[in-house]
């Protein structure tokens, strides 16, 4: 299996899908990137020659922020918001929706699994 940029080992999938296994490369970037290199997206990743893999890797490395660098960038953006204690930072700290969504119901992606409060209905009366 070919290795692109260290840890990532895309498998027996079509190349344009295989490179989306890299953090920071989705379907759109993948297609754009292969076009820049004028490589075909429909060949299997295992059929790539070493030279092609190297070309792919160096191109991504030079032009895109992926994997660790990108993760660090995202984290530092979050930490900046938290440090300046602005509204968005506070929402990140509390694990609540940041962009003004309602929290009375839903918002489960941010809040995580429901924490049921026993006897809530009785207490409300």
């Amino acid at each position, binding site marked *: 299996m070919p290795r692109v940029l260290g840890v990532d080992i895309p498998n027996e999938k079509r190349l344009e899908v295989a490179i989306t296994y890299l953090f920071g490369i989705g379907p759109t970037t993948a297609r754009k990137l292969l076009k820049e290199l004028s490589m075909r997206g429909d060949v299997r990743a295992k059929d790539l020659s070493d030279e092609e893999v190297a070309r792919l890797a160096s191109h991504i490395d030079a032009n895109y922020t992926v994997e660790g660098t990108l993760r660090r960038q995202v984290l530092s953006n979050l930490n900046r918001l938290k440090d*300046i204690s*602005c509204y968005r930072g506070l929402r990140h700290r509390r694990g609540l929706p940041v962009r003004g969504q309602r929290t009375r119901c839903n918002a489960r992606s941010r809040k995580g699994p429901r924490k049921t409060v*026993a006897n809530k209905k009785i207490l409300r009366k």
Partner: protein
Amino acid sequence: MTRSIKKGPYIDAKLLGKVEKQNSANTRNPMTTWARACTVAPEFVGHTFMVHNGRTHLKVFVTEDMVGHKLGEFSPTRTFRGHTKKG
């Protein structure tokens, strides 16, 4: 919807005037303001603002990271003291 780039950032004229006055006088006194919608300009760095939150003015010390945000973002308007405990 974001603000049109043509207009540039909204900076409260009165507040900017106050900041410039302090900059030329080289003072760093807190400035009371209600202009929560005012964008933090680079000139504001190092100054302290008392930003209204609907009830009181909260102290906001502007650092370099805050440039580009609105003053209101640093002065929360809601107090959440937690849900009622049983009993």
